[in-house]
């Protein structure tokens, strides 16, 4: 029998925190499978997992974890009935039981003391609140990208991970897997010191003015919105999967950074990984307006502490002539270096087996930081967020990393974060 949230979530807090104050063991039937076999570890060695946000990416992540013999999958959570039911169905089918719990409210899932780790694949506006709550609840987290919606969220998420000793992995499997054409030569020192990068980025998200439509009974619209401003239900707000042209939540500023952060998490992540900039954040973002004659579109340049310039959507006529010390990637990335070979560095690899998912599970076991540790994800996301702000304000900005603020630009600092709809707080 799937567990549903209580009708009155306003009483939730008391109930959930009672659960967390005492040991709450969800029912777990000891079967012969609990003892394990040649392939499957005993139950006591398996990581107990649940999933929050079971749509497109969530169901894919679920499949990856559910398929592992060292994971015991016990719970799903989604505000949409169909995603919830389908996700529970996949688990029950895998284990040949009906034991998988299904929640509407993520707090109920996090309150379960038996769950070691969760994967989160909700729309972006929920990522920070859920991650911090999960850290407080003592869970490890696999979090889909883009990991943050605003600049202020990132440091708070890192703090929570470090404070509570949690393993928090971001979800861009492409960073290590898809950009070898640029990663390998850069890390091998073949380009020498990296000097400049040209990168194609997608558009940022936009306001949503879609008309109201009757809310269907199978979605908890208030909970779907969560901390985002209240706006009426319309399927175009919350459907559409990967669309960023106005037909899904990824298009809209209250829930997402648009293609700029969505694909940016991959492309920027892969690029700065190749260029050895993962531990850095830009020091400035320069706005280049379009020329009056229309020959050059507007673009943005980020500068990193090492002096590397990362140009986003710079018109090709402004690119320097190709040099021998250039590598490119089919996704619109060109990296240029000095050409004087430098000492190569070994390219990191995932821990464990099973790609980025295996890396996360291995780190849950060993308590090491994963390949896409949350801090590296936050550094990655700083770049597209800064691009978005520079684009909105149409001016250049300087970034103070230690203060996590823009220098001398009060208006830009207003855009570091946004007020969350009550009762949700960071």
């Amino acid at each position, binding site marked *: 029998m799937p567990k549903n949230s209580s009708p009155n979530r306003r009483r939730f807090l008391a109930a959930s*925190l*009672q659960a967390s104050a005492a040991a709450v063991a969800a029912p777990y039937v000891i079967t012969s499978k609990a003892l394990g076999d040649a392939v499957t570890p005993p139950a006591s060695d398996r990581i107990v997992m649940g999933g929050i946000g079971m749509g497109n990416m969530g169901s894919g992540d679920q499949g990856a974890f559910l398929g592992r013999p060292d994971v015991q999958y016990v719970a799903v959570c989604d505000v949409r009935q169909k995603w919830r039911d389908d996700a529970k169905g996949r688990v029950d089918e895998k284990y040949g039981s009906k034991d998988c719990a299904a929640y509407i409210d993520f707090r109920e899932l996090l309150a379960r003391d038996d769950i070691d780790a969760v994967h989160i694949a909700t729309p972006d506006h929920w990522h920070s609140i859920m991650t911090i709550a999960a850290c407080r609840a*003592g869970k490890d987290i696999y979090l889909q990208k883009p990991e943050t919606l605003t600049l202020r969220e990132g440091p708070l998420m890192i703090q929570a991970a470090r404070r509570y000793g949690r393993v928090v992995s971001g979800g861009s499997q492409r960073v290590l897997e898809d950009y070898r054409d640029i990663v390998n030569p850069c890390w091998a020192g073949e380009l020498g010191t990296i000097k400049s990068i040209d990168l194609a980025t997608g558009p940022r998200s936009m*306001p949503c*003015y879609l008309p109201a439509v009757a809310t269907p009974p199978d979605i908890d619209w208030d909970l779907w919105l969560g901390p985002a401003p209240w706006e009426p239900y319309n399927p175009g707000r919350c459907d559409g*999967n990967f669309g960023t042209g106005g037909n899904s939540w990824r298009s809209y500023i209250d829930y997402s950074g648009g293609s700029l952060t969505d694909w940016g998490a991959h492309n920027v992540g892969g690029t700065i990984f190749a260029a050895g900039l993962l531990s850095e954040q830009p020091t400035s973002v320069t706005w280049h307006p379009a020329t009056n004659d229309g020959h050059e579109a507007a673009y943005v340049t980020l500068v990193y502490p090492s002096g590397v310039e990362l140009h986003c959507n710079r018109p090709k006529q402004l690119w320097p002539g190709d040099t021998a010390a250039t590598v490119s990637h089919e996704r619109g990335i060109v990296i240029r270096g000095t050409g004087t070979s430098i000492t190569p560095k070994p390219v990191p690899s995932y821990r464990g087996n099973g790609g980025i998912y295996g890396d996360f599970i291995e780190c849950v076991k060993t308590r090491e930081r994963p390949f896409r540790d949350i801090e590296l994800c936050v550094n990655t996301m700083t770049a597209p967020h800064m691009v978005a702000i520079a684009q909105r304000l149409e001016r250049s900005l300087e970034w103070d990393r*230690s203060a996590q603020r823009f220098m001398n630009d009060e208006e830009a600092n207003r855009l570091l974060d946004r*007020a*969350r709809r009550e009762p949700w*707080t960071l």
Partner: protein
Amino acid sequence: MPFDTTTLDSPFAALAAFDWGADAAPLGVIDAAVVAAHGDAALTADLEKRLGAIISGASSRAAKDYACRKLSMIGTAASVPGLALLLTDPHESHMARFALERIPAPAAADALRQALGNVRGDLVIGMISSLANRRDAASVKPLAALLAGDAKIAAGAASALGRIATVDAAAALAAAKVQPGPVADAVVDARLACADALLAAGNRGAAKAIYEAVAAGIGDAPTTRRGRALRMAARSGVLAALDDTIGQAIRRGFITAWLAVALLVPMAHAEVVAPAPSATAKQAAESVLAAIAAGDADLRAVALERVRYGLHGTWFSEALVAKLPALDPRRQIEVLSALADRGDVAAVAAATSLLKSSGDADVRLAAIRAVGKLGRGADVPALVVALAGEGAMPAAARRALVDLSGPDAATAIRKAAETGSASSRATILDIVAERRDRGAVPLLVAAAGDDDAAIRQAAMRGLAAFGGPNEIPAMVASLEKSSGDERKAAELAIVRVCTSSRDAEAAANAAIASYEAADEASRQVLLPALARIGGPKVMAMIDAMLADPAKRPQGLDALSKWPDATVKDRLLELFGTAAEPKEKDLLLGTLIRIAPLPDNKLDDGQKLDLLVKTMALCQRNEDKAKVLERANAIRTIETFRFVVPYVDDPALAESACGSVVELAHHQKLRDAHKEEFTAALDKVLGITKNDELIERATRYKAGQTWNRQKKS
């Protein structure tokens, strides 16, 4: 030129009447004006006044929502009174806060604080949240007063105090008298947040006191996951408060001390110059060493995190290393892993020693990893020995040799590639290639001519990765020495250098020069590789062969390997005149292969046109099936319409279904022609027996995506 504010009259009139679903174009004019208002006090004031009229007027929720968003960007103290009036309205309160939270004027914080007493329920939590986001120190007292009230609000107030994190906030939390439950939980989290902030500000003593108080409150044996996480947080905090080595270290990079303290920034590979440890650092070290040896897994994890990212200086690495031999094997593994991440080479001798002497295979594996991260050239021999080990040892040793950094490491590995068994040398040559060690090119060139096939193949793999024109003669010589699968691999290695390397054109010319200088036997060996490289010179060679009946088969074979579709007309012409079925098969197969190639030689229309022509030439169903399977690389609706009718042909249905589904995978294409795709997917579901196609078709029909499983 001053902004003409009369141009805003019409957009604001539209905004006053705006609701969700209405034409939003006028709002774009206001958006642009807001941007233009930067530095323009007059325009800002004008906009602010107009937006204020919207929020105080009778406009819709949507209009007020919009106005609040704009005021959040340019609003000043002048907007505060109007926004404050909305704070008590359950529909407008959040968006009023949206603006007030961002307006830096003290009046905005005053309004939020004042509203604490004027609102109820969740709206109070909203005010609290915004005051917390503003880090409003003046709110500490009123927030502290809320700790004794309604549980939900009290929990919110506690959280806010943790965000504000001043000394006063910490004191208020410490003094709070709360019952166990949600409020107590929030207070604990908030106290930890205050302690972290105090620590980051350099107030170690005050931070430590809070951590210790929290640790005492949690006790030594929490039974819940949350309790364990809190205990870890508190104990970790105590160690951080004691560990003053981070502030003393000199490091590369832009990370400042407070970030490093707060976030335990990795120190690996930094130039750490730390003076002798302080008494408190030593105290932290003793705690860490004790925890590592003890049975408490949580505290051990906290301690190992500190090993990785704190207690900087060789003095601690040496102290830890001294404990290694006496530790249980499980602990040795954990410590070796932590030392590897720590990055201090002082640990490498101990790791090497365990690699050689430990009786536990897992310890030796952990030691190998540590040597890989920390070692230098002198450690290569031990790792080479491990390459011949058992179980997981060879893979671990291989990884370690790839990871080994430092200039002398590369030299030592190259030297190791020149001695030992053929199998060992081949493995090390692959490692050299994976390291992309360009200094090893002469070594690879020499190895490419070795008498041992395994060594030759490894060398060619390396040269394929980063060889250039100068290496082509050696690669050609290796090709000539090879046979069977080795020859195929050698061919592809040469092709890769001649098409994908940075000096591809020069490399291709070098390959052609080798061909021209070679005897007939050698030319026959090299021709397939040249054909895969392509280009006008190679085409001229092939044309000459095709004109010679004795060499025609060789020329056709070469043509069948052509890398792009620029030869399509030649192929169609030859097909038309080919007498031998075998020739026709070869040409047909080539047409099918090149038509949809993802280069820019043909546009999508031309690619499809070629496939359609090729389909017309096919007599056998197996060839038609191949055409259908290749078609899905051309992602257009025209291709889709070409493939769909074949779903009804029983002999070709599965191939056609596969391509329909593959085309449907691409959401933009599918969404743009939803009805057609839905109808086709319905057909596929009624016909195919393939489970994966059924799953994919079902998902695409529902508007979902499908994640391709990467081949391992």
